[in-house]
């Protein structure tokens, strides 16, 4: 107990936090100092390490190095339960509700109010649970039934439940990770009122958001992160939107992207009135794509961009709309259909829908193009496959000890290159790249940009979803913007600015 932190200016301090995932250094000596009774905004581009830092604080991830001081005392937070016991609560970016259980049970899961039946059998005190829940919901200005199944609520209502849950834990530190990404402006105001009242009670609040106006309005201090590193902490009053963005990006945008020599020509792909079977997802989307064009796709989280692309690729079903390839209507109901029409999709979540972790680089490269390597109709030609792997490793400068290495031991950037070569092996004419540089180190990002530029110069058509403004503006010939499942407009690459894209991306909110 001799290890005392500095004087109790801070409720919680994180010092020199390091966290490495296979292939990428997510946090590199990150810092955070929270004062009681303040809102502390944590900002940075996607992949800057904000959520990772918070997951370290909340005990979801184990830090490789670094220290956490809570009220001046050095603590080790091994799991979320420990964090909760200390008084740290977190509203996750991706909600983790149990839709088949009631609102009340979702709020009290893991810490149900108990009573003794017949004086000795411990049972859940449902009465107390429902009563407390009703009071809590009132506090966050929500008026639904505590017994209602959580799954029947809208996303924003579920978000409110999550916040009510955090409030109910009587926390001293509250982490809000993108709490407004799916809220209406009315609901945002309600949230801000809750934040103010928590502040008055002395709670230290971490507020992660991409919305600059919100940050400047609600926060007292701002910590900026970039590529897993701590850039600095400023009083919110000293900052402007421009100052924050400059610190977030940290370098001249002009040098970040390679020169492009592609010349968009005639349209090769057209989508008309494309509508999901899910009424909350994409609807009425029409656009075309030119040969040799890089079409950026912008929008906020939840704009249904990924869903749209997965719909076009046959992973998700659509109820209405048509797709034309070289002027001819095509039907795509499953990925094989799309692949046959020379379309490739590099998915957003590399781990979940991209790599085969336990398989070799060679298997990962060749899996989508095995048809080409059959001899005598059944046997695969190992020599040709080895050649394909060798060619791609050289062409995309994939750093791997050999083709037999398991892909999970490569860095994120190299895994991404392996996935790109998987699709290039099919010689696709249309490549849909969903967040192609997510979770990749800065150096590798530039290499991916070069590959994209080169592919477009060869006359391939690229659709690139990106949540990084710089990347969208720096790489696209044209930017399609979506908001709430609908296409809200196009911006030409040379005219694109953060502001005009954001205006389209928030059209319905």
């Amino acid at each position: 107990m001799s290890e005392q932190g500095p004087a109790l200016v801070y409720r919680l301090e994180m010092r020199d936090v390091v966290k490495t995932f296979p292939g990428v250094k997510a946090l590199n000596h990150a810092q955070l100092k929270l004062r009681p009774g303040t809102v502390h905004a944590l900002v940075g581009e996607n992949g800057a390490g904000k959520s990772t830092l918070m997951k370290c604080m909340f005990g979801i991830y184990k830090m490789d190095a670094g220290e956490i001081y809570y009220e001046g005392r050095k603590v080790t937070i091994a799991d979320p339960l420990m964090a909760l016991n200390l008084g740290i609560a977190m509203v996750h970016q991706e909600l983790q509700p149990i839709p088949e259980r009631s609102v009340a049970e979702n709020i009290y899961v893991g810490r149900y109010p108990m009573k003794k039946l017949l004086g000795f059998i411990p049972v859940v005190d449902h009465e107390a649970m429902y009563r407390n829940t009703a009071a809590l919901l009132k506090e966050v200005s929500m008026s639904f039934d505590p017994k209602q199944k959580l799954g029947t609520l809208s996303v924003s209502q579920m978000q409110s439940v999550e916040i009510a849950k955090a409030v109910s834990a009587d926390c001293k530190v509250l982490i809000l990770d993108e709490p407004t990404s799916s809220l209406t402006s009315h609901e945002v105001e309600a949230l801000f009122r809750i934040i103010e009242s928590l502040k008055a009670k002395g709670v230290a609040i971490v507020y992660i958001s991409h919305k600059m106006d919100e940050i400047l309005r609600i926060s007292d201090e701002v910590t900026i992160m970039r590529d897993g590193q701590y850039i600095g902490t400023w009083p919110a009053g000293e900052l402007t939107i421009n100052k924050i963005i400059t610190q977030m990006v940290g370098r001249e945008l002009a040098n970040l992207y390679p020169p492009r020599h592609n010349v968009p020509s005639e349209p090769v792909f057209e989508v008309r009135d494309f509508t999901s079977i899910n009424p909350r997802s994409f609807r009425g989307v029409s656009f075309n794509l030119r040969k040799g064009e890089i079409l950026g796709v912008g929008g906020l989280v939840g704009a249904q961009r990924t869903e749209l692309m997965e719909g076009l690729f046959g992973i998700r079903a659509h109820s209405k709309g048509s797709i034309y390839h070289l002027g001819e209507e095509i039907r795509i109901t499953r990925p094989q259909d799309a692949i046959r029409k020379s379309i490739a999709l590099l998915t957003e979540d590399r781990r979940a829908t991209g790599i085969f972790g336990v398989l070799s680089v060679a298997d990962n490269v060749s899996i989508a193009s095995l048809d080409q390597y059959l001899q005598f109709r059944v046997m695969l030609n190992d020599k040709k496959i080895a050649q394909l792997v060798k060619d791609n490793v050289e062409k995309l400068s994939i750093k791997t000890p050999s083709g037999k290495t398991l892909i999970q031991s490569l860095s994120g950037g190299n895994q991404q290159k392996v996935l790109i070569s998987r699709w290039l092996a099919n010689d696709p004419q249309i490549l849909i790249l969903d967040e192609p540089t997510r979770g990749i180190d800065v150096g590798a990002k530039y290499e991916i940009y070069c590959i994209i530029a080169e592919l477009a110069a060869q006359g391939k058509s690229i659709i690139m979803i990106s949540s990084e403004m710089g990347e969208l503006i720096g790489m696209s010939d044209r930017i399609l913007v979506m908001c709430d499942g609908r296409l809200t407009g196009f911006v030409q690459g040379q005219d694109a600015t953060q502001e005009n894209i954001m205006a389209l991306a928030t059209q319905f909110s």
Partner: protein
Amino acid sequence: MQSPAEAKPRSLSQLGKTLSDNVIIVGIVLLTVVVGVLRNNFFSEANFRNLISNTAIRFIIAVGVSGCLITKGTDLSAGRVAGLSACISAILLQRSDYINRFYKDLPDLPIIGVLALVMVVCAVIGCVNGAVVAYLKVPPFIATLGMQTLVYGICLVYTGAQPIGSLRADYAGLATGYVGTPMASYTAIIAVVIGLLMWFLYNKTRHGKYMYAIGGNENAAEVAGVNVGKSKMTIYMLAAVLYGLCGFLLAAKSGGASVNMGMSYELEAIAGCTIGGVSVNGGVGKISGILVGVLVFELLKIALQFLGVKTEYTYIVQGVVIITAVALDIQKYLSKK
């Protein structure tokens, strides 16, 4: 990246890792050696012949189940399907002069024809398993557990729960026959051929690559254009065909069949696969590993027998080994996270 000075300790630690990864194999082999030294008739020809034919039959089943395991599924109907196949084979290949013949006036059928027939019957069962798993998305554990009971029921109804004996000499001779040396029994040769064919299928064909990909990451496989449903159908169907072959051989070996034949073979097969490095987390598993796993599991059974452990107790030991094997496999996966 590795400096030469570090190379040696690394290969030593590599050896240590290999040993700890295969702790069950190492343990059982040590046990066998000890038993071999203690019991002088352990290293006898008869014992080896017995070991080889037991291993051969169980290897065929295990190879079938391995495809299901590699794609993160399982097949608990394996033993009962083999049992049904054994019963049908025995019924159709009874001696014509046998008084209690199941079909009194059945002409002598060609053995190969009967084999083909039971394989087709089993293929149909496998297709149902595959369809339920792949298209109705019933968890394989439940789907095949249901099929296990269902097939047992069919077998009971069909045979009337009567044991079937007095097999034709040419059929029973399949089990006793051999080429050159008694070690190279027909059963062993068939198992080797199956092993080679399956090795080819797993390593040299599209189907094999798709199978490993589905096990490695089913969603990614779907995105990469793999027809996951079709692949799974093929896997479960092929597995059942192998159980069919196994049941056919089993009846010949036993000189008859009964409804309880093949019971709980699926568990031994899963044990053999897991001990041999097939991961229940999917995407990993080799034919050679399965052979080692099955062989080692058979060695364990024989060693216990020679030690004079009562059958009741051997079940307990086998259960412990199976759970341990899967637990160790899962730990390997967890430590990677």
